[in-house]
C-alpha cells in the first residue's frame, strides 16, 4: 500500500484554494448564509434564555416567595431536622401574627402581618421582590409594608421612618377579638407581583403577639429543595422522617415533574424547529449550485482526482467558509444580544439598567457556532458525494430537476400552468423550499403564541374575572350599611366603556342543625386537617345554639350576569327559572371534597336581618361548589354558604346589602374607564377596591422586558423565514436564466414572464402559508399547553401572523420579478450561450 501513497495533499490544497478563489461570488453568498444563520440562532437562543428567565422571575414575583414545598405549623425539632436534610437547600419560617384593620379613618381589607426569620426573608422573599427599600424591621415598633398594602392605606409616597398609626388585631389562639392600636415606624417597603396586601414585623413584636409558629394555619416552614424536581416518594419520605402531628401537612405539587417534562418537550420541539430552519437556510444556499459543483467535480475526476481527494477538497472549502462566517455571525450576535437589545429595553424602560438584561451564556454561542459549522460541512459534502458516486461523464452532464422520461398526456401550456409546473419542476427542491418555508412560518406562529401566552395581560385575564372590584368593608361590622347603592351601580353601568357590572349581596343566615343535609359534610370536615375541634362537642353545641358564629352561613345573591358566571363554574347544572324564583340555590364550601350528598336536599334557614327575622324558609340545593365558585368575599361560619337569585333575596330581605360589585370594561386595562369608575367611590373610606390594571402596572417593568425580548425573537424568526425565501427565489431565477432566454426567443414578453414569476411566487406563498397553518397550529397548541402555567385558553395572535403572511406574499410576488430584472439584462443570445456553458 505504501507504494501507492503519494504526496498529493499539497496539490489537493492548491486546487481547493484555486477553486475557492474562482468561486468568490458564490462563497460570499455561502459565508453570508453562515453568518446569518449563526447570528440568528445565537441571538434567538440568547434572547430566548433571557426571555425564559424573565418569565420565571415574574412567576416567582407573582407568588411573592420562592420555595418548593411548605410544612404547616412546624415544631422546632422538625425545623432543625428538615434543615439538616441532604436534599434541603434551606428552610425559612414565616408566621402570620396580626392583621391590620384600620389606618387613620380608613377600613382596611385585612392586611396580613407576618414575621419571617432571616432565612425566609433573605433567601426566599428577597429573590421574589421586584425591588425593596429600607430594611427588615429590627425593633418592636418597626414595620415593613408591601406597596400594595401602602396603596390600600392611601399612602402613595412612603418614606422610611414615617409614622404609621394603625388599628390591628392579633391572631393568637387565645386572643379575644379586641382591636389594638400602635404607632409603627416604617422601616421599609417592597414591590412584588403577588397582589397580596402584606407587611412584616420584627421578631420582638412577633413575640408580643403570643402567636406561635405551631399555631393552626399561622406558621409555615418554607422549604427550598436542592433538586426542585421532587416526586411524591421524596415527600412521603420527608413526612415519615419528621413525625407529623395530626393537623400538619406538607404542601407540595406532585405535578412538578410532569409539568417540567411538558415544558422541556415543548421547548425541544421549538428548538428543533429553529435549528431545522437554520439548517435548511444554509443547505438551500449550497444546494443552489449543486449542479455546477457536481459538473466541476466531474471535471476534476476526469483528470484523475479520486473521490477521497474530492472530499478533502470539499472539506477544506467548507472549513474556509466556516472560519470566516461563524466568527462574524457570533460577533454580530454578541453585539445584538449585549448592546442593541439591552439598549432597546433601556429606552423603553429607563429603570432597567442596560447591563443585565440579556444574560448571554458562552454555551449559547458554542452551540450556535457548532451548529453552523456542521450544517455547512454536511451540506457541502453532498455534491462531492454525488460526483463521487457517478462516472465522471455522467457528472459532467448532470442537471438538477431532470424530468423523468414519461409521456404526459396534457395539452396545457398557458402562463398559469407553466407557473404551476415550474414550482414543482424539481420535486426535491420544491420539497426543500416548502419545508424550510413552512418550518420558519410555523416557528413564527409558535413563538407568537408563546409570547401571547406569557403576556401579563393574558396571565392577569385568567387570574381575575373582573377589571375592578369594589367591596363594602363594613359587611361584618355591627354598623353595616348600604355603601354601594343601586344608584351608584347604575351610574357605573351607564358609563361609556363599561361592559358589565355584577352585583353580589350578602347577609348572615342561620341554618339550624340538619343532619340529613349537612351530616356528611360536617363529618368530613371534622376529620380533615381543618377540623375546628371535637366533633361530638361541637355538634351538640350546634344543635343547642345554631346562631353561634361557628355555624352560621352567608346568604349570598347574584344578579343575572352573576348567575351566568356561577352556572358556568358549576357546569350549567342550575335551572334558570327555578333559581330566579327562589326554588333552588347553590351551596358553596371550602374545606371538603365533592358534594357531601347535599345535592337535591332541601334545607331550612332564617335570616336575622330579613323582613321577618324569625321566619323559617326552605330552599333546595341544586348544585354544590367550592371556594372558586363563590362570588362573594366575606365568609360566615363552617356551614356552607347559600347562593340565591337577587330577586329571591330581595323578596326575603327588602333591600339586601351589596357586598361587592365586579366591574368589567369593554376594553380591559383601560385607564380612562378605570379613572371614571373610581371617581364614583372617591371619598368612601369603607369601600376598598382591587384592580387588574393596578396589578398590571406593578408588573410593568418585567412586562416591557418580556415584550421586548419576545418581540425580538419573533422578529428574528420572521427574518429567518423571509431570508430563506429570498435566497430560494434568487437562486431559482438565476438557475433558470437559459430557460427564460428560450421563452423570450420564442415570443414570451417580459410582461408575461413577470406574470409567470408572480404566479409562482403567489403559489409558493399560498401553499406554504396554508400548510404552515395546518402544521403550525397543532404544534403551537402542543407547545402552548406544555408551558401553560396559568391555564390560559389557547388563542392565536392573528395580527402578527397576518402581517408576516402579507409581507411574505408581497415579497413572493415582487422579489423574483426584481431579481429577474436585475440579473437578466443581457441579450437573449448571451443568456442562451451562458446557459450552455453551465
Amino acid at each position, binding site marked *: 500500500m505504501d507504494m501507492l501513497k503519494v504526496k498529493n495533499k499539497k496539490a489537493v490544497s492548491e486546487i481547493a484554494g484555486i477553486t475557492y478563489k474562482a468561486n468568490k461570488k458564490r462563497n460570499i453568498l455561502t459565508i453570508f448564509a453562515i453568518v446569518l444563520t449563526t447570528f440568528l440562532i445565537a441571538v434567538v437562543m440568547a434572547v430566548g434564555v433571557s426571555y425564559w428567565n424573565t418569565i420565571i422571575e415574574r412567576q416567582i414575583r407573582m407568588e411573592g416567595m420562592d420555595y418548593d414545598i411548605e410544612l404547616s405549623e412546624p415544631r422546632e425539632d422538625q425545623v432543625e431536622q428538615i434543615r439538616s436534610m441532604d436534599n434541603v437547600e434551606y428552610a425559612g419560617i414565616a408566621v402570620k401574627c396580626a392583621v391590620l384593620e384600620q389606618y387613620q379613618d380608613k377600613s382596611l381589607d385585612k392586611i396580613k402581618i407576618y414575621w419571617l426569620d432571616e432565612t425566609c426573608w433573605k433567601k426566599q422573599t428577597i429573590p421574589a421582590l421586584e425591588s425593596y427599600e429600607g430594611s427588615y424591621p429590627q425593633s418592636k415598633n418597626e414595620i415593613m409594608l408591601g406597596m400594595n398594602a401602602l396603596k390600600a392605606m392611601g399612602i402613595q409616597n412612603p418614606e422610611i421612618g414615617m409614622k404609621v398609626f394603625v388599628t390591628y388585631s392579633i391572631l393568637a389562639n387565645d386572643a379575644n377579638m379586641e382591636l389594638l392600636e400602635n404607632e409603627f415606624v416604617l422601616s421599609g417597603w417592597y414591590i412584588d407581583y403577588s397582589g397580596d396586601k402584606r407587611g412584616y414585623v420584627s421578631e420582638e413584636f412577633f413575640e408580643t403577639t403570643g402567636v406561635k409558629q405551631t399555631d393552626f394555619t399561622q406558621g409555615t416552614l418554607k422549604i427550598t429543595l436542592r433538586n426542585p424536581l421532587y416526586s411524591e416518594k421524596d415527600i412521603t419520605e420527608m413526612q415519615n422522617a419528621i413525625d407529623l402531628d395530626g393537623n400538619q401537612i406538607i404542601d407540595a405539587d406532585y405535578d412538578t415533574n410532569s409539568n417540567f417534562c411538558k415544558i422541556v418537550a415543548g421547548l425541544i420541539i421549538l428548538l428543533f424547529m429553529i435549528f431545522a430552519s437554520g439548517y435548511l437556510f444554509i443547505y438551500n444556499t449550497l444546494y443552489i449550485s449543486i449542479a455546477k459543483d457536481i459538473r466541476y467535480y466531474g471535471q476534476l475526476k476526469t483528470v484523475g482526482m479520486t473521490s477521497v481527494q474530492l472530499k478533502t477538497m470539499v472539506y477544506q472549502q467548507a472549513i474556509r467558509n466556516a472560519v470566516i462566517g461563524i466568527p462574524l455571525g457570533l460577533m454580530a450576535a454578541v453585539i445584538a444580544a449585549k448592546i442593541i437589545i439591552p439598549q432597546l429595553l433601556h429606552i423603553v424602560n429607563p429603570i432597567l439598567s442596560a447591563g443585565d438584561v440579556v444574560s448571554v451564556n458562552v454555551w449559547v454561542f458554542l452551540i450556535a457556532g457548532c451548529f453552523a459549522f456542521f450544517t455547512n460541512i454536511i451540506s457541502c459534502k453532498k455534491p462531492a458525494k454525488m460526483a463521487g458516486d457517478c462516472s465522471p461523464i455522467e457528472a459532467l452532464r448532470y442537471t438538477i430537476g*431532470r*424530468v423523468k*422520461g*414519461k*409521456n*404526459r*398526456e*396534457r*395539452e*396545457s*401550456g*398557458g*402562463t398559469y400552468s*407553466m407557473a404551476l*409546473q*415550474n414550482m414543482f*419542476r424539481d420535486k426535491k427542491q420544491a420539497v426543500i423550499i416548502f419545508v424550510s418555508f413552512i418550518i420558519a412560518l410555523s416557528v413564527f406562529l409558535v413563538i407568537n403564541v408563546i409570547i401571547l401566552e406569557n403576556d401579563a395581560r393574558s396571565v392577569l385575564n385568567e387570574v381575575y374575572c373582573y377589571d375592578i372590584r369594589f367591596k363594602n368593608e363594613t359587611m361584618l361590622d355591627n354598623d353595616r350599611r348600604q355603601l354601594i347603592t343601586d344608584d351608584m351601580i347604575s351610574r357605573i353601568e351607564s358609563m361609556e366603556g363599561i361592559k358589565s357590572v355584577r352585583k353580589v349581596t350578602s347577609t348572615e343566615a342561620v341554618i339550624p342543625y340538619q343532619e340529613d343535609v349537612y351530616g356528611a359534610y360536617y363529618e368530613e370536615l371534622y376529620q380533615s386537617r381543618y377540623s375546628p375541634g371535637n366533633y361530638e362537642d361541637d355538634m351538640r353545641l350546634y344543635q343547642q345554639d345554631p346562631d353561634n358564629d361557628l355555624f352560621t352561613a352567608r346568604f349570598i345573591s347574584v344578579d343575572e350576569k352573576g348567575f351566568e358566571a356561577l352556572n358556568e363554574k358549576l357546569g350549567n347544572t342550575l335551572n334558570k327559572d327555578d333559581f330566579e324564583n327562589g326554588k333552588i340555590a347553590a351551596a358553596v364550601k371550602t374545606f371538603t371534597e365533592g358534594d357531601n350528598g347535599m345535592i337535591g336536599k332541601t334545607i331550612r334557614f332564617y335570616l336575622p336581618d330579613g323582613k321577618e327575622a324569625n321566619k323559617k324558609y326552605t330552599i333546595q340545593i341544586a348544585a354544590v361548589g367550592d371556594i372558586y365558585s363563590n362570588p362573594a368575599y366575606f365568609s360566615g361560619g363552617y356551614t356552607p354558604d347559600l347562593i340565591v337569585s337577587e330577586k329571591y333575596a330581595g323578596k326575603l330581605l327588602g333591600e339586601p346589602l351589596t357586598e361587592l360589585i365586579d366591574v368589567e370594561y369593554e376594553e380591559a386595562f383601560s385607564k380612562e374607564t378605570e379613572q371614571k369608575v373610581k371617581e364614583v367611590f372617591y371619598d368612601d373610606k369603607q369601600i376598598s377596591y382591587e384592580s387588574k390594571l393596578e396589578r398590571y402596572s406593578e408588573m410593568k417593568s418585567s412586562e416591557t422586558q418580556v415584550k421586548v425580548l419576545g418581540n425580538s425573537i419573533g422578529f428574528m424568526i420572521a427574518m429567518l423565514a423571509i431570508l430563506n425565501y429570498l435566497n430560494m427565489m434568487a437562486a431559482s431565477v438565476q438557475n433558470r436564466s437559459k*430557460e427564460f432566454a*428560450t*421563452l*423570450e*426567443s*420564442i*415570443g*414570451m*414578453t*417580459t*410582461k*408575461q414572464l413577470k406574470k409567470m414569476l408572480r404566479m409562482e411566487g403567489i403559489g409558493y406563498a399560498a401553499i406554504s402559508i396554508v400548510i404552515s397553518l395546518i402544521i403550525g397550529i397543532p404544534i403551537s397548541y402542543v407547545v402552548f399547553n406544555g408551558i401553560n402555567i396559568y391555564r390560559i385558553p389557547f388563542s392565536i395572535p392573528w395580527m402578527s401572523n397576518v402581517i408576516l403572511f402579507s409581507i411574505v406574499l408581497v415579497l413572493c410576488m415582487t422579489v423574483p420579478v426584481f431579481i429577474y430584472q436585475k440579473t437578466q439584462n443581457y*441579450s*437573449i*443570445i448571451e443568456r*442562451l450561450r451562458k446557459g*450552455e456553458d453551465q
Partner: protein
Amino acid sequence: MNILETENLKKYYDMGEIQVKALDGISLSVKKGEFLAIVGTSGSGKSTLLHMLGGLDIPTSGKVIVDGKDISKMTKDELTIFRRRKIGFVFQNYNLLPLMNVYENIVLPIKLDGIKPDRKYVEQIVEMLGLKEKKYAMPNQLSGGQQQRVALARALATKPAIILADEPTGNLDSRTSQDVLGLMKTTGQRFGQTIVMITHNDEIAQMAGRIIRLEDGKICGGGNGYAESEE
C-alpha cells in the same frame, strides 16, 4: 418584394483594448419566399447576423427592416411580440422546454399570444413532421432529429413569415440532417415562408436557393445581397 433588409449593419464588441467587429457594415435584402443560406467559418459573424435579423441581439449601428418595419426602433416587449408573430426560430441545440411535452412546446408561442391554437393546422404540422406518435412525449425521450423537428414545428406554429435557423443540423448526423432540411424546405414552400439558415456545412448550404458567404463580419462571397435581388 423584400421581406427582410439590413442597411449597413454593424456590431462591435469591446474586449479589453481590442475592438472586435463581429459585423462590419452588412447590407442585405431577402425576398419573400426565398431560401437563403449564410455560410462562413466559425467567428465570421454569421450567427451574430442571424440574431440581429431576429431581434435577439441589438446592433451597434445600422438598420434591420422586417416586413417594412425597422425593428431596431422597437421596445423590448414590442420586439418580442413582433418576433412571436413574424419570426420562427430554430436553434442548433433545439432549446425545447424540458418540462413540457411535444405538443405543449409546439403550441406555446400561440398560447403566449393569447390565441387558441388552430388545432387543424397544428395537427397538420405534427403530421408533416412525423411527430404524431410522439405528441405527448417529453423532450428528453426524443432523439436529436426528433427534437429538431419539434423545434421546427414550434417555429412554424404561429405561421410566421420568416424562419430563422441557426445551424439547425449542427447536432445531427448527415441522414437526419437531410431529413430535417427537406422538411424545412417543403413546409417553407407550402406555407410561403422565407427561410434564412446559417451553416458551416457547404453540402447543407447547397439545398438553399441562394448562398452568401461571410468573412470577418463582411459579405465576401456568393454575391452581394443587392446584386442578386436586383436581378
